[in-house]
């Protein structure tokens, strides 16, 4: 990319006592990108976010914002804003005053800032809610207020710390669509922290997968899903059957550790399609998922794998304990480092 990165992290490290929360993270995030930091809790993704926002000072390494080193700049002097996990709305202020707060402390005149706050509330479809107190709103509405409050000061980068974590599934899906729309409309960089792999895959232009304070894989949603770089990623982002080097050699006749997605294997009756690897086993469990069924198969070679079968017209009946043949399409075997 020829333009300057919106965020550049260089050798970013944060130690709390003896714990290395973040361990040497290098990362460039492009302007206008919807970027996700995905990882289990304690993987360091939130600490990275807090260092970008300025709430934590790195133990070593630098944070650059559009080419300016802001490593030691206070949060109130950074052009980044945060949507907090618990929303952090000011309970003693009305919704409108909450949204206008960033402009108020910047010295914007009352009329101008209230007009801007109303506009921001309209952006998140909360017109007419300005006079309420935060406690009078539902979780989803508070979420939108937090978003409007961060957007009203026109940050160059918006940080979102698991913003949808407290919402129920339907609302979460709806908010995902809205977030994506707003991001596209405003064209600002979104950095989204989540432990929900599906959310990260749905929303992001690129994903950084975190584990133990480090980025273990960086790429587009498709990259990360289709070509997981390690067994950790293979199992954290979606599920995979992971074969160690010996297992791969013994079971698949494939050299080197590899993984495969459940949907890239088939239960076949009779002859296996040409060019596939046939594995025999017995059905240990079937889990009905609606559009598909997850079938757990104990392979004769001594490994348990999951196969995803679409519940379409060709659905095969796989009774518990019956012997089946699993066809593995070798082109989908992903080598692991």
């Amino acid at each position, binding site marked *: 990319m020829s333009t300057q990165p919106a965020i550049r992290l260089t050798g970013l490290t944060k130690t709390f006592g003896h714990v290395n929360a973040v361990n040497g993270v290098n990362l460039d995030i492009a302007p206008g990108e919807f970027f996700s930091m995905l990882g289990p809790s304690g993987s360091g993704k939130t600490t990275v976010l807090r260092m970008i926002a300025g709430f934590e000072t790195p133990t070593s390494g630098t944070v650059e914002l559009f080419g300016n080193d802001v490593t030691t700049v206070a949060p109130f002097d950074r052009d980044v804003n945060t949507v907090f996990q618990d929303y952090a709305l000011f309970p003693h202020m009305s919704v409108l005053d909450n949204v206008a707060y960033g402009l108020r402390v910047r010295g914007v005149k009352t009329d101008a800032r209230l007009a801007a706050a109303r506009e921001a509330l309209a952006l998140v479809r909360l017109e007419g809610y300005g006079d309420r107190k935060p406690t009078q709103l539902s979780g989803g509405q508070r979420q939108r207020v937090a978003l409007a409050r961060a957007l009203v*000061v026109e940050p160059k980068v918006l940080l979102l710390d698991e913003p949808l974590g407290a919402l129920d599934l339907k609302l979460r899906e709806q908010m995902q669509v809205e977030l994506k729309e707003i991001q596209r409309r405003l064209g600002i960089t979104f950095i989204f922290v989540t432990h929900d792999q599906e959310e990260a895959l749905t929303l992001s232009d690129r994903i950084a997968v975190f584990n133990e304070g480090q980025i273990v894989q960086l790429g587009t949603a498709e990259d990360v899903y289709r070509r997981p770089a390690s067994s950790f990623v293979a199992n954290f982002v979606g599920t995979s059957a992971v074969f160690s080097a010996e297992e791969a050699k013994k079971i698949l006749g494939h050299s080197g550790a590899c993984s495969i997605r459940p949907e890239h294997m088939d239960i076949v009756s009779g002859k296996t399609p040409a060019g596939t690897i046939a594995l025999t086993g017995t059905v240990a469990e079937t889990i009905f998922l609606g559009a598909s069924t997850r079938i757990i198969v104990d392979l004769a070679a001594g490994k348990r794998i999951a196969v995803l079968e679409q519940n379409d017209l060709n659905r095969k009946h796989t009774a518990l304990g019956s012997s089946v043949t699993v066809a593995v399409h070798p082109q989908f075997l992903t080598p692991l480092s």
Partner: protein
Amino acid sequence: MTTVSSSAPDRVGGSPVGDSLARRGSSYLYRHAKVRLALLLSAPLFWLGLVYIAALVALLITAFWTVDSFTGEILIEWNIDNVTKVLGDALYHAVTLRTLGAAILVTIIDVAIALPIAFVMAKIASRGVQRALVIAILMPLWASYLVKAYAWRSILAQDGILDWLLGPIGGSSPGYGFEGSVMTLAYLWLPFVILPIFTALERVPDTLLDASSDLGARTSSTFRFIVLPLIVPGIIAGSIFSFSLTLGDYIAVKIVGGATQMLGTLVYSNVGVANNLPLAAAISLIPLTIIFIYLAAVRRTGALDNL
């Protein structure tokens, strides 16, 4: 599998415990909620009614009696001489203003000292330091009031600690008097002001401070717009302590106040030396009225709504 199991044994029929008097009494109380409530509350209500309300009413009534100037006995002759004396006499005006001034000064000093200490305790200190600070603040409360007042007497004394500390920079102890009283009272009531402010600050989530700073507010703006409005109830709770305790105090003033007269010392000398209980009662109505006015003013601001 889906049957609802009744875990409690059925005692309606033949109770294994028998039908003792205690058991019948218990079941009677169980069925009669009002009797239960009456038994529960009668003792505390009796205490409250007799000791608090009755004593206050007696005080109010006594103010409208008089004393036989010759025998010193209280005469039940209804009059308003004591009240008009207290309201009209310049001496009482001066003492009232002085006491009110002391109460306001003590409150301002205490809040000013308590805010930063409480902030450090609630938001900056680690768990261990926080616990140590809470104990350090509570510790003086375990010591006798008199001991502390006399300690201040020696601090304020000529060639005392304060003189010794301030001497090198050209200062000196204010000695025994109004200033000494204010300093001593501010010290005595400080824990009562720190603790409610500390509790209020602890209830302010850290993310609110982060959010404010994130939105561009400098520390001073965060304090003014976010922290202060949220801890006003705590500050007011603390100020009620320092304000009302100062209004009524007489011992500390006696010990470190020198010749300073406060409402408390006037009440004390009228009860004791002058043996004029009705006048003492009339004087003690002044701080009572001031506190009622203060509480009413606080209520009007709405600061008590969130307590």
